[in-house]
């Protein structure tokens, strides 16, 4: 090889940055392809340029880690080892016919209407995750936002989404979201977490193995206490109310089996509800490349390789586990990809520390997963008239009809018979709800286009296959 090998890293969050920096340090030419204006991903999301001077105090995770990554990125960019392609919304990655290379297809520009392609010898997929939101009556009212959406607003645009907020659902994201809202000046009326303290206690050994993580959680809890935020564990939001927009939510306590205790329901006034039920991996690009999945995540080996030669994956796309895991996986993927691009067998001793961090973080993530499961029976409690697919306006009742009278027994057939999941979001939003109502496990689904593509761009694709 006369030229330096080229590695495309899709996603500039913790995993993608770690992979890019590691591979660049080994002499690989890295093309870091990302949808945002600035590196950082969801976790290290940076305030938009020109955000107002009266911005609320923005929360920031792992500031020192971020400084290190950003300095590294700047250095490699200045040296020409990393090309950072911002505002590149990748819709497909495809292997090139008859060669070992890959083409990354992206959209650019304000309307995402300009097609661009990036060629590389290998690919690291670090596309992160997206939020799981389970429907409930009133969840489509203006004023109901996803927990991650609220956080993104806080971090990126620094706009306070509302004045009186409730943060609800389940998962470790709720704590920082509530703390961030409170710090930014919102009154957080309650943090409603469906998991109970007993579940946390049961997983104590695995959780205690990550003292840093627990301290982080304890730090948020202390901040909530300082802001006087009520934390309701083993509670759920049963419904959101409002005429034009959100005015209040009904909150109820859950029993040990995850069902609401009769008589515990009460109304809490609020104008913002930030709701989330954890994250799901983005697997579209990997799936279209033909990579095997394991459950809802991309399957990788000890070197973070997928089963498609030349394709690595790191971070939430291989299983949701947070920043520490993403950094470790990205680091390992960068080492492995660099070595293999130079035709050598990588030496795992070079990433021994990252390997240990990965093992710890995966155990921690598994324990969290077990704690923060949606309350059982949530799908059965969903009233027939509640919309589950917002894009196509499909109600829970229509999904039940497809299952009951038309004989659909799986999510794909429900989709065919009801159109649930056929709209703009392609089932990312309603997938978990449809699976729950159908009574089948969540299938990550096939989305050959990771995002909508103008037909004009498709019509003018270069002939690289």
């Amino acid at each position: 090889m006369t030229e330096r090998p080229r590695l495309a890293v899709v996603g500039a969050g913790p995993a993608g940055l770690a992979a890019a920096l590691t591979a660049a340090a080994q002499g690989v030419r890295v093309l870091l392809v990302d949808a945002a204006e600035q590196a950082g991903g969801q976790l290290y999301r940076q305030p938009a340029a020109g955000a107002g001077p009266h911005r609320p105090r923005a929360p920031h995770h792992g500031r020192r880690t971020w400084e290190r990554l950003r300095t590294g990125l700047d250095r490699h960019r200045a040296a020409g080892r990393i090309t950072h392609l911002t505002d590149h919304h990748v819709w497909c990655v495809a292997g090139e016919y008859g060669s070992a290379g890959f083409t990354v297809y992206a959209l650019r520009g304000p309307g995402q209407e300009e097609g661009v392609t990036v060629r590389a010898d290998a690919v690291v997929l670090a596309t992160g995750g997206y939020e799981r939101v389970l429907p409930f009556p009133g969840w489509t009212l203006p004023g109901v936002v996803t927990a991650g959406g609220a956080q993104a607003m806080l971090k990126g645009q620094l706009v306070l989404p509302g004045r009186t907020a409730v943060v609800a659902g389940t998962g470790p994201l709720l704590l920082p979201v509530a703390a961030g809202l409170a710090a930014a000046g919102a009154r957080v009326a309650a943090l409603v977490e469906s998991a109970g303290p007993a579940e946390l206690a049961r997983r104590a050994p695995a959780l205690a193995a990550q003292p840093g993580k627990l301290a982080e959680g304890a730090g948020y809890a202390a901040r909530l206490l300082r802001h006087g935020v009520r934390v309701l564990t083993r509670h759920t939001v049963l419904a959101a109310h409002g005429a034009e927009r959100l005015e209040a939510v009904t909150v109820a306590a859950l029993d040990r089996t995850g069902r609401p205790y009769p008589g515990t329901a009460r109304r809490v006034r609020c104008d913002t509800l930030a709701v989330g039920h954890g994250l799901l991996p983005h697997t579209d690009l990997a799936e279209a490349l033909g990579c095997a999945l394991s459950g809802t995540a991309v399957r990788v080996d000890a070197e973070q390789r997928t089963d498609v030669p030349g394709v690595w994956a790191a971070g939430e796309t291989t299983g949701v586990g947070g920043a520490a895991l993403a950094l470790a996986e990205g680091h390992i993927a960068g080492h492995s990809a660099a070595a293999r691009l130079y035709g050598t067998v990588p030496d795992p001793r070079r990433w021994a520390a990252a390997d240990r961090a990965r093992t710890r973080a995966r155990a921690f993530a598994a324990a969290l997963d077990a704690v923060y499961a949606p309350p059982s029976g949530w799908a059965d409690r969903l009233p027939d008239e509640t919309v589950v697919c917002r894009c196509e306006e499909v109600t829970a009742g229509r999904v039940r009809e497809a299952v009951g009278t038309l004989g659909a027994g799986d999510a794909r057939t429900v989709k065919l018979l009801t159109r649930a999941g056929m709209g703009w979001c392609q089932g990312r939003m309603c997938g978990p709800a449809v699976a729950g109502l159908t009574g089948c496990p969540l299938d990550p689904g096939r989305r050959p286009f990771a995002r909508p593509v103008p037909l004009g761009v498709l019509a003018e694709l270069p002939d690289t296959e």
Partner: protein
Amino acid sequence: MAGAACALYAARAGLEVRVVDRGPVAGGTTGAGEGNVLVSDKEPGPELRLALLSARLWAGLAEELGAAIEYEPKGGLVVASTPGALAALRDFAARQRSAGVTAIPVADNQLTDFEPYLAPGMAGGVHYPQDAQVMPALAAAHLLRASGARSHPGHTVTGVLRTAGGTVYGVRTDRGDIHAPAVVNAAGVWGGDLAALAGTRLPVLPRRGFVLVTEPLPRRVRHKVYAADYVADVASDSAGLRASPVVEGTAAGPVLIGATRERVGFDRSLSLRAVRALAAGAVGLFPFLGRVRALRTYAGFRPYLPDHLPAIGPDPRAPGLFHACGHEGAGIGLAPATGLLIARALTGRAPEFDLTPFRPERFGT
């Protein structure tokens, strides 16, 4: 789809019907189709006779089942971009008219009356009012329900039961045997495998077709619109890519563009080349689509037989076995006629017309 139609007409002929499928309803090619009910693309001959009967039956079924199957008698508009293509198209249409098709010539300056957003500069076209559309998965599910047949989804047929004399008396599934004096093979692209289980031969092969689906739009494409080279393509025997997109709006809003025709076996992986051909064809017909976004694409496997005609009727090599498969890209459209003809054969009544061209044993052994 073919199986659901067979179940419906067999049940209406007084038979007790069981439907066995290894997957869910519409889990195979039906769920990956466009729902074309076309006469416009068929040359005079046995398939056109089947299509004309089917078009009538679909209209009746739509009255019965209401809006549930999203039947739309929208008509087709076939356009030609060059005078040469137009002459060929007009000649083709004249022969179709003599076979009972309504085919109305449309002059170049009338095209925008039919399709206001059509690209300028077309030489002319032909309007086919009998072309229609159904939503295939809904149609299959509702026909199956209307049949009242007992359904066994998720049951894989592992064998066809035959007596020592060779007569078929049921099927073996992974969840038990089902006995019946007649077995209908409506296994679509897997019809050849089922025939083999019965010890007989039906050379059904897959032809891959990609369909592109856009974001929902207000209705701008009113008919099923396609270019005249499509007609030449259906009967084409050449392998490789033959994109000749039919562009149409749907009741639900998205524009469907499809389908490519490729012989690549059962390979489901995304072909950007196929997708590019579809998009280029659609934008060529309707320039406004250039800025419209495709939300998804999917591939299905059209079952075809070497002479591009389906197999419909009893198999003399395996008494008790009937075939209803191999409809290639026309299975949705041809399903009701197929179901009706199968029901007649099952009850020993005379068919609507001569089934000789569809004989399952015509390919020899």
